[in-house]
Each structure stands twice: as structure tokens, then as C-alpha cells.
């Protein structure tokens, strides 16, 4: 905890100072100036929007697909144990390796995915998917969700084991359809786990760096520049730690809003039910 909280508080302090990477111990108090300059920058609005789209799509995509995969793997079919293991491969693959293979598969001349897309009649343009401002974010999202789904699936699969079998049977005896059974029994058991997973996905997606940095570095035309990319560029290219910390705080505020908002919605829903 010390290793987390102390640096965290230091970052809060830094966000009100002008501090460079090259001399992190020299802090000049500048008040709100960092926040003002960050928020006044017109491209920061695009960064925020990109971040929100990216995070929302990651959460919805990974939780939705992860739930489907978990339900699928929870059933009976030959080779279940093997399938349950193999499906986790994307999650186990290191970020750098994923970025490398994804970049190669999206290569505009020789990439297997580019060829497949062209074969299907979808032309990503001569620059390829990753250098097309309309498609780059989509490509990054597909790669991210590909990596996250197994994680969600594994966690939900283990939560599914806690679904009381008697209740399922009781519901079926009462004549409930599968969808009804799912909603009344399974969903109720899964709900807290899904809530936790959704929070984790939100936070991790807000923080995701390597994959985007290695695949597009926030380009083309800033279309994949999320808060973390912006923050990294400020801290390590412009070497302005103060400004970077201010961007980080904006990210924290967003995460807090999402999480607290999510709790409120969940609580309200619980009361209604």
C-alpha cells in the first residue's frame, strides 16, 4: 500500500506544479495552471471523447462477449476441459507480443487480416487499417477485446459454479423458460461478479498503454489518442511531469464518476427489485 499511496499523493501534488522529468525534485507551484492548459487545449476534447468511446466499448464488448463465452463453456460438450484452457490463451499472451502480431496481421501490404478484409470486399484504403483514421480505433478495440474476453469468461465461469442447481431446477419446474431462468436465477448470482468485472475493465481500459502505443502511438490524426497516451507523451516526450499528473487526475476523476455513478445505478436498481 505504501508503494501505491505515497506516489499517488505525490502525483496529486505534482499536478499543481511545474516539474520536469529531468529534474523531478524541483517543483515550482503553479496552482491550477496545468489543469487550465490541459483543459484549454482543443485536442484534449477529442482525447476525452476517444477515451470514453474506447473504455465504453471495451467494457461492453468484453463483458458481453465474456458472458456468452462463459455460458457456452459452462455447458456440456466433448473436450470441455481442453477448451476451457485453450480459450484463455489471448489473456495469457503478453501485451507486447499481442501488439506485434496484431500490427503484423494488420500490415497494409502483407497482413493476413488486411487480405481477408479485402477478400471480403472491405477496402481499408491504401494505408491499411491502422493508418486509417476511421478504422484505427476499431482495430485497437478488436485487439483489446480479443485479449479481455477470456479473462471475463474465466471469472464469470467460476462465478457460474455458484449458481444453486436446486433453484434452476425449481424455476424450470415452475415452467420458467430458459431466458426466464437465466434472468431470475443465474443473473442474480452473477450480478455482483459482473459489477466487479465491469469496474476492473473500466479501470484497466483507462490505463491501457502498451498496446495502443506500440500499434498506433495515438495516431493517425489523434484518432487513438487516449488519456494515457496523452499522459505518456507529456511525461516522457515533452518531459512535463506536472502536466502529465494533471491529465492523470482528470482520468481519476472520470473513473470515480463512472464507478460511483455505477454504484448509484446498481443501488437504485436493487431497491426497485
Amino acid at each position, binding site marked *: 500500500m505504501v508503494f501505491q499511496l505515497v506516489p499517488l499523493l505525490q502525483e496529486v501534488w505534482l499536478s499543481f506544479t511545474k516539474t*520536469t*522529468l*529531468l*529534474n*523531478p525534485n524541483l517543483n515550482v507551484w503553479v496552482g491550477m495552471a496545468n489543469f487550465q492548459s490541459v483543459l484549454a487545449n482543443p485536442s484534449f476534447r477529442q482525447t476525452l471523447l476517444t477515451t470514453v468511446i474506447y473504455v465504453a466499448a471495451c467494457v461492453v464488448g468484453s463483458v458481453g462477449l465474456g458472458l456468452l463465452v462463459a455460458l457456452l463453456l459452462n455447458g456440456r460438450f466433448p473436450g470441455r476441459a481442453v477448451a476451457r484452457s485453450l480459450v484463455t490463451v489471448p489473456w495469457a499472451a503478453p501485451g507486447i507480443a499481442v501488439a506485434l502480431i496484431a*500490427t503484423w496481421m494488420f*500490415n*497494409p*501490404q*502483407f497482413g493476413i487480416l488486411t487480405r481477408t478484409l479485402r477478400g471480403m470486399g472491405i477496402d481499408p484504403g*491504401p*494505408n*491499411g487499417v*491502422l*493508418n486509417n*483514421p476511421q478504422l484505427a480505433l476499431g482495430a485497437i478495440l478488436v485487439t483489446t477485446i480479443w485479449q479481455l474476453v477470456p479473462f471475463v469468461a474465466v471469472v464469470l465461469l467460476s462465478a457460474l459454479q455458484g449458481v444453486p442447481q436446486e433453484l434452476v431446477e425449481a424455476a424450470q419446474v415452475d415452467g420458467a423458460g430458459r431466458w426466464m431462468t437465466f434472468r431470475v436465477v443465474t443473473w442474480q448470482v452473477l450480478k455482483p461478479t459482473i459489477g466487479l468485472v465491469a469496474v476492473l475493465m473500466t479501470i484497466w481500459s483507462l490505463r491501457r498503454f502498451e498496446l495502443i502505443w*506500440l*500499434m*498506433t*502511438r*495515438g*495516431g*493517425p*490524426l*489523434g484518432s487513438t489518442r487516449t488519456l494515457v497516451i496523452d499522459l505518456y*507523451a507529456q511525461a*516522457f*516526450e*515533452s*518531459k512535463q511531469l506536472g502536466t502529465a499528473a494533471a491529465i492523470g487526475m482528470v482520468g481519476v476523476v472520470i473513473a470515480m464518476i463512472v464507478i460511483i455513478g455505477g454504484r448509484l445505478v446498481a443501488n437504485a436498481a436493487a431497491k426497485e427489485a
Partner: protein
Amino acid sequence: MGAGTLAGCSSEPQGSSATPQQATITFAASTLGDPGRGPGLQKLIDEYNSSQHVVTVQPASVPYPTFGQTVLTQMGGGEGPDLVRFDMPEFSTAASSGLLEPLDDKIDAQKLKLIPGPDKYLTVDEHRYGVIFENSNYGMFYNKDLIPQAPKTFEEFVQTAKNTTKGDVYGLAFRQTQAEEAGVWQDIFNYVLGFGGDWSDGGKLTIDSPKVIEGLKAYQQLYDANVIPKGADAATFRKMFANGKVGMELNNGGYVTATKSANANLNFSVARIPFPEKKQGALLAPITINANSKHKDAALDFINWLLKPDQQVKLQEVLGASSVATPTERSAESLQKFPFLPVLDELTESGVPQIVKGFGPQTADIRHIVVSQVLAALQGQQDMATAMEKAQKQAEELVGR
């Protein structure tokens, strides 16, 4: 610029070192990670280690993709490798922030016969902070099987690129994606300089000056002509060049060894870039001593060893077609292997390091602004003149603050 003028102050004999203490020091160089050149450099370091029993140099492990960031973070935090081979933008940042050890009284440029052209860039705020480790001039690499006769003018260059582009083969390749921001900067440098422009006059930014825009329009003309593998990164198109799938490439001399190691049979040569002005980018990479180092004497000893004539020749062999700190003779053997070497060596005096003159420490920021605007122009969002007007304004705001 007389970097050697301070030499008289020191009581020690110049160019030779005081006997260093027993020490193991680290050396960070992105070159160490190159498949072609890394092993050769390692061999040279091993030779130093076995030449004496006092100092041991060990390679520090800093991968190329985050080299500058990582080393600067470590140095800002009071640590970092003892010896660092920096690229120019990071060098000027580190030097002007007091992270590098001044070498004024430790290096005598005249006595060591350092080549003055590139050496003058290593003095920041009137102090010397490094010695040239590698100086790589940019030339036009071309595949002789695809292009028997090297183009001599820009018009011929464009025409050759168009004529060579057929099926799988592209006439030219250069970097044009945000993911390779630093690489795009290196590439557009040649166009800007070759058309007589410069990013600044030393005191004032001139990003939107007509000559700069003309050079960038030339770059855009080739992009629009569909003669390059668009979206391909350097790792890919350099391999394509090595496999005869790309006709021409503007690149620095360091690339010769890499190409040769990727495909020993490739029939290629190098000529001067056929742009109107005989001026081109140079990849200057000084070796420096970290101001935090606990073994500065040992680090200096290694530098002095490296500057000896025998070692300079060996270093040059390892680095390929780059030149080093001092004038060295090319061996007959390497001249036979690479007959074009004199062409590249001759460019040393007209080479310009890839920093914004007078704005060295801010180069990385200006680079980001300029490259983003240039790429937006390539994507058809704006014309090049508008792009550079915007870049000029943003960069002025930046350096003003």
C-alpha cells in the same frame, strides 16, 4: 567552435586518462540491440575488457522503442547507465538539464583530431558534453538490379520511383505513420534541407517558410504518387528493400550493415540524395558520461580507448557506412565490399543533425507538432502550407512558454 580552448585549464595530460579505480560500469546504446551491429559492438567492448583488468564495461539493457524515455527517467531519478550513446534530441535535452558530465577539460578536440563538422554540435551552453560515437550521413540507397542508373535530379527521382513501382515492387519507401513519429521526422528532414529550407534560423522558428513548405510538398508529391508501401513501418519496408521489393530508400549509413546482414546477396548501392541543395540530415550520436555516474574516470577511460586510431577503425567497421569521431581510412577490403563508401563519407561536412537549430532541448516537442501536422496534410485534411502555418503557431507558443 573551440571546444578545446578550455583544455589548458587542466593539469592532466590531455587525451590520456588518469588511472581509474577498479570498477564495473554500464553502457547503454540502442545499437547494442541491432541484430546486425549489436554483436560487433559487443565484441569491441569485450576487447576493451580484456585489454586491461581495471575497468569492465557491461551493456545496459534498454530496448530501442523506449530508449530515450527510460534512460532520461533513470537519470532524472539520480541513477542511469554510466555511459550513454544518445541521439541528438535526447542529447540536447540531457545536456541542457545538467544530466551529463561536462568534458571540457577531459577531451582535447585538436589533439584527438576530432572531425570538426559534427563535433561542434556537442557543445551546449559553451560546454562540451560528449564525443561523436557515430555520425551517419543520409544517402539514397538503391537496388541496382531494379534501378541500374541512379537518378540525378528530383524529377528523375520521382520518375524512377514511378517506373519501378510494379506489382509487388515499390519504387520508394519512407516513414509516414504517427506510430513512427521520430522516423518521419528523420525522413522529412532530408526533404526540407534538400530544398533549401530549415526549421529555424537559429534564433527564430521558420517552420512555415516557403522553402520548408516546398520540401514537404515534394515529400507529399511522392506520397500521393502511390510509389511507396503506404502504412508499412520501417521494420517492414527495410526488409522489403533487402528482398528486392523496394527500389530506393533515403537512409543513413548505419543501415548498410543491417541490409547486408538481412540479405548478403542484395545488389545495392548508395548515391547522394538528388535534391536541389547538397545538404542532408545526419544521424549524430554522441557518447556521453552520466553526471550521476560513480565511476566517471572509468567511463572516460573507455571513451579514450575508443578514440584511439585502431579502435576507431574497428568501430567504424562495426557501424557500417557511418563515420566516427576521427578521420579514419576505409580498409581496402571494406571499399571493395562497399564501393560507395566514399560517397557517404564525403557528405559528412554537409550533414545536419536532426535537431531544430537553437531549440535543441525542445526538438522532441517541435517534432511532435510538425509531424502531426504533416501527417494530417498527407491524409488530405489540409494543404501543406496551412499545416505548417499551424505548426509554426503551436511551436511558437511552446517555445515561448
